[in-house]
């Protein structure tokens, strides 16, 4: 089988792309594959996929970010892109701007709604509830679901009132 791009060399890299329900197959020689993506050179593992996603979330003019290191553990964004794993919990703060879009891409959401550790105080919980409601409100307004928006606004008011009473 010959390469789909150059039509000269034997195709050794086979790509299957699924977008919605459309399946396209691409057969490439190593040279064209390398040109198409540097990541194809080696085995395409989870780390590469994640790195690819992270890259996608990084605006071009901010490529310096790869040099930024986590002050707590010393992991750089470049390291993360190479190994696909973060170094410690503080990395999530250091690389917050870039991890937000990445998490959204992986999970379809970047807002936790599940349980929280026993040790995390009530304050954080309340704050997170409020933040969530504000996000919801924003979404409802964007979708022009005004009745829902009004309902959420009332919830926010109530929560804020409760907070004021307690402090």
């Amino acid at each position: 089988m010959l390469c789909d791009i150059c039509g000269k060399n034997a195709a050794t890299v086979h790509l299957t792309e699924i977008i919605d329900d459309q399946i396209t197959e691409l057969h490439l020689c190593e040279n064209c594959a390398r040109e198409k993506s540097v990541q194809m050179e080696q085995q395409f593992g989870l780390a590469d996929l994640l790195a690819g996603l992270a890259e996608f979330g990084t605006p071009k003019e901010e490529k310096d970010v790869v040099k930024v290191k986590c002050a707590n553990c010393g992991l750089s964004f470049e390291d993360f892109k190479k190994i696909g794993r973060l170094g410690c919990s503080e990395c999530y703060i250091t690389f917050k701007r870039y991890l937000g879009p990445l998490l959204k891409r992986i999970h379809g959401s970047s807002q936790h709604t599940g349980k929280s550790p026993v040790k995390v105080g009530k304050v954080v919980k309340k704050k997170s509830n409020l933040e969530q409601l504000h996000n919801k409100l924003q979404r409802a307004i964007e979708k022009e679901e005004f009745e829902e928006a009004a309902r959420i606004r009332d919830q926010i008011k109530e929560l804020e009132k409760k907070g004021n009473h307690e402090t």
Partner: protein
Amino acid sequence: MKLNDLINHTSEWLKGTGPNADIVISSRIRLARNLDKVPFPHWADKKQREESLATIRTSLEKSGYLNKAVLLELKDLDNVDKQFLIERHLISLEHAKSQDSKAIFIDEEEILSIMINEEDHLRIQVMQSGLNLFEAWNIINTIDDALGKELSFAYSADWGYLTACPTNTGTGMRGSVMLHLPALVFSRQMNRVLAAIAKLQFTSRGFYGEGTEASGNFFQISNQVSLGHNEEEMILNINGLIRQIVEQEEAGRRALLTQDRVMLEDKIWRGLGTLKSAHIISSQETIELLSLIRLGCDLQIIKNIDRRTINELFILTQPAHLQKLEGKKLSSEERDLKRAELIRNKLRAMSF
């Protein structure tokens, strides 16, 4: 409790009880947890990893969970021990690979296990027989809270529990269900089912989890997304999906019985014949034939043989289990002989 005590004990997940136990072998929930600000195991140096292990060990002692359990360091285990734990679904392949400051906690009933210093500082796992995700969640939620009183877990209000790999961030939860789907495989419907699963952002693996192929018609289905929904919602989603697959398998089994009964019975009885008479048998052939026998029992074609015995045989015939039973190392050829002998003896004890 010692590691070798496990061999004479049936793991909770193999008991063959619980809802839909004819199709659903077991339900499993795992939570990924990390210590706040402490480097994740892959990024930590040896001293930091040792410290994490010590901190977690102390918290397990304080919580009282260690009383009826065992905490083993991987460096103290030989290859057969490690393979033995993989076969019982207590540790991952990755956990067995390198052994620096890694440990495994196992409770007496083999319901709760905790991998320490795997990809995350803690990988807590609870297993149940049958389709029992909610029960598994209740158990693991309590344990998580108890450990959370002792340990400071890495957590952010926006992103939930923070994990080494961003694919686990959020709840850090993965729910997995092990299904036995021979009818869907025989009727060539499995590709359709797997495609649907992938579309819904679930993933399917083989009997031994990540990176293993489906064999013996077993499929392990789990959620991929861990952020955006709370734990109960995620479990409801998995449960709903599994129920649909179970219904499809049931319909497939009914169709097999009405349309291909003679063929099916022939296949099952021949399978049983082989298992009862073989003197040399590989683990691959064993798992394929046991799958047939299990279907025969579920469909009441074979009577007087209980599900639990077959479930146990799936595990006891695995390489490390055979070596543990014999109490010595066995070559691949020796294992094929011992495996056939074990199966003959177990099946001879029953009348058909």
